[in-house]
């Protein structure tokens, strides 16, 4: 599959994990990487270019930090402008049909902060429901988010390392068609711990 990574981080100078993830993504051969904030620092998205990008790829990976339970604003802008009626959905809007939608999310709060008992009250997967609904409307298979919790905690270094290494495996598996989509979709989330079990020919 041809893989496209759309990266969105509005303050990259403060980012450690996403910067490392971006470096990994840029390093995987035959994977296209686009820094949305670098391409459109004034948020003036070129709709034609971005739609063509989607047509040229089979798996779209959105890499971003969770901000206020949602994406950074440029991804919303991207959705609003690029996913046009007649292109992504609606009458004759089947251009994206069958392309994978995958979010690669980093969250500052530990996993315990999510769910009915956590202070955030909702599961992370639930909070990202608008993306899932969008993918659904565009007839794009929705892959559970590849997630890192507690991304801001320095004591979480081992998990961060695993997550970054897993990101490379994930992108390579998508590229090489060795990613077990059915198995992945049966899960709530994908993490650095579970990624290896989803790649054909690899065992945990």
């Amino acid at each position: 599959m041809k893989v496209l990574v759309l990266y969105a981080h509005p303050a990259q100078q403060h980012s450690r994990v996403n910067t490392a993830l971006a470096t990994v993504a840029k390093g995987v051969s035959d994977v296209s990487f686009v820094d949305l904030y670098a391409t459109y620092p004034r948020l003036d998205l070129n709709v034609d270019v971005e739609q063509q990008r989607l047509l040229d790829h089979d798996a779209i990976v959105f890499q971003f930090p969770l901000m206020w339970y949602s994406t950074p604003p440029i991804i919303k802008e991207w959705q609003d402008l690029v996913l046009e009626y007649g292109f992504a959905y609606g009458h004759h809007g089947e251009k994206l049909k069958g392309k994978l939608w995958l979010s690669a999310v980093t969250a500052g709060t530990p996993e315990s902060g999510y769910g009915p008992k956590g202070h955030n009250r909702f599961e992370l997967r639930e909070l990202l429901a608008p993306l899932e609904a969008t993918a659904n409307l565009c007839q794009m298979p929705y892959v559970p988010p590849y997630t890192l919790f507690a991304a801001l905690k320095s004591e979480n270094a081992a998990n961060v390392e695993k997550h970054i290494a897993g990101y490379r495996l994930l992108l390579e598996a998508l590229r090489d068609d060795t990613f077990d989509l059915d198995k992945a979709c049966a899960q709530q989330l994908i993490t650095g711990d579970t990624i290896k079990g989803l790649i054909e020919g690899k065992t945990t």
Partner: protein
Amino acid sequence: MSGFLFQAFVYLAAAVIAVPIAKRLGLGSVLGYLIAGIVIGPVVGLVGSETQDIQHFAEFGVVMMLFLVGLELEPRQLWGMRNKLLGLGGLQVTGTALAVMGVCMLLGLSWSVALAVGLVFSLSSTAIVLQTLGEKGLMKSDGGQASFSVLLFQDIAVIPMLALVPLLALPELLDALHHGADGGGHATELSLVEGLVGWQVAGVTVLAIAAVIIGGHFLTRPLFRFIASAELREVFIATALLLVIGIALLMTLVGLSPALGTFLAGVVLANSEYRHELESDIEPFKGLLLGLFFITVGAGINFGILFGDFGTIIGMTLGLMLLKAAVFWCLAVAFKLRGSDKWLFTLGLAQAGEFGFVLLSFTVQNGVIPADLSQSLLLVVALSMLLTPLLFIIFDKVILPRLTEIQVREVDEIDTKGAAIIAGTGRFGQIVNRMLRGNGYETVVLDLSAETVDNMAKFGIKTFFGDASRPDLLDAAGIREANLLVVTIDDRERTTEIVKHARMERPDIHIVARARDRIHVYELYNAGANDIIRETFDSAVRAGRSALEAFGIHPYEAEKISAAFQKNDRQILYNLARIYDPDIPVTENAAYIAGVREAGEKEREALTRSRGRNKGAVDRAWLPPGKILDLEE
């Protein structure tokens, strides 16, 4: 030695005293020099016949001036002027020469003498006109450009005239000359083309021009670099002088006009990076030599002959100027010069020129014009030059103010009334117009330059000719009905005037104005503009943003920094506007200076990154939770 020092002292003292006074009185520097010459020559008698020799020497100022004019003119521009140069210049010289010839024949002169007189009088004074146009900043106006075309053509035309004059010789005068000593100065001059046949002369001439152009293009740069590396300013000045004198010499040797040669060299060097250095080096020499030249013209006026035949001489002078003005006026109409440009062209060039002196002495040497007649003619040339500054004063004080009334009929009839009036259609106004038009808004575009108006028409942009700072024109453009006025002209005072007037006329209209700098922003604010746009601020911020990106700063970060900078600068502008006092220059306004300093401090704060609890304006946005705590550690 003391004689030379005394002369130099007299000339310089006369200039130093007369010129500032003349300028203060609004007469212009040229008239100042001429008056200085009259005072030290005919009136006080401090200088005498040597003025003739000094005048020949001082004519070199004209050569230098054309070099400087050439420097200002890129080859492309010169090529663009070719129609004006040949059409306007050619018609003027032929027209004036024939008209003068006709009048002379009516007065009973033989045709050959009449033609010679016509040729002499067809020339105007490059020195006076270009100097005055430059001083008044009118060189770039349509009238100024037309005048320049004509003058350049005349300077070139002198060469064939010098060739033609000997053919008009009167046998009886020649005999008289041959009886006397051979006084022809020209015979003793060096020449490269003497004794060559026609095609050889042509070949040598072409070679000389090619040498100037090719040498100017390829050799001057390494030469100047080599000279500049010596870091001796006087050597560079010497090189610049050498260049001009060398070219003038080469041109003289092949029988071409030195003025034309140096002009060409100037054009070739117009793109050179040494252009401004050359300009500033040659400029003072040109100024002094021209000044000297004007003084000698004043000093050379022979009051004896003048008062001996006062009525005739004055009559001839005024008649000549009237005739020349008539020819220029016809050409101005034919070449569609309008309004003030037409009058500038008509009045500015209505004199005989310095080349007239040259041609006159040449005609006498060649036995074409009798010596006594040439004395009177010399006086006419000098007097007409003396009167020229007065014509410019008439233009300034009489024509221009009255034009405000007359011009209403001459400016374009504005047949559409737009929702928006755009004053000025230069680089700035065009963009505004395109954006408004592109979105279906009606605009009325005004511009001061007829040429721009015509060019715009070629691209299908309807523009009206006229000065938007004139109230009646703004009225005609529909200021009473318009919703919007955009002032985009490149003239600070005029912009403010237009805004003031429009605000008075229409308290409710929205005015967008282009400001040159901060101070102009304050002025426009006081004048009543709604949106005041500094002409270079936004592009400068963008350049700064590109520079930050070039240093590897993330484009979105660079965008945030420039946005913060812009916001902060606008705040500074607002704060300083309240301290600004139009009656005190900013450099003497202590509160303003303190405000600027304080603003500088604030700007550094605003643009630095977060430190401790001081969150910088730039990265205050998007700071991850806990980051502030990290930074405090």
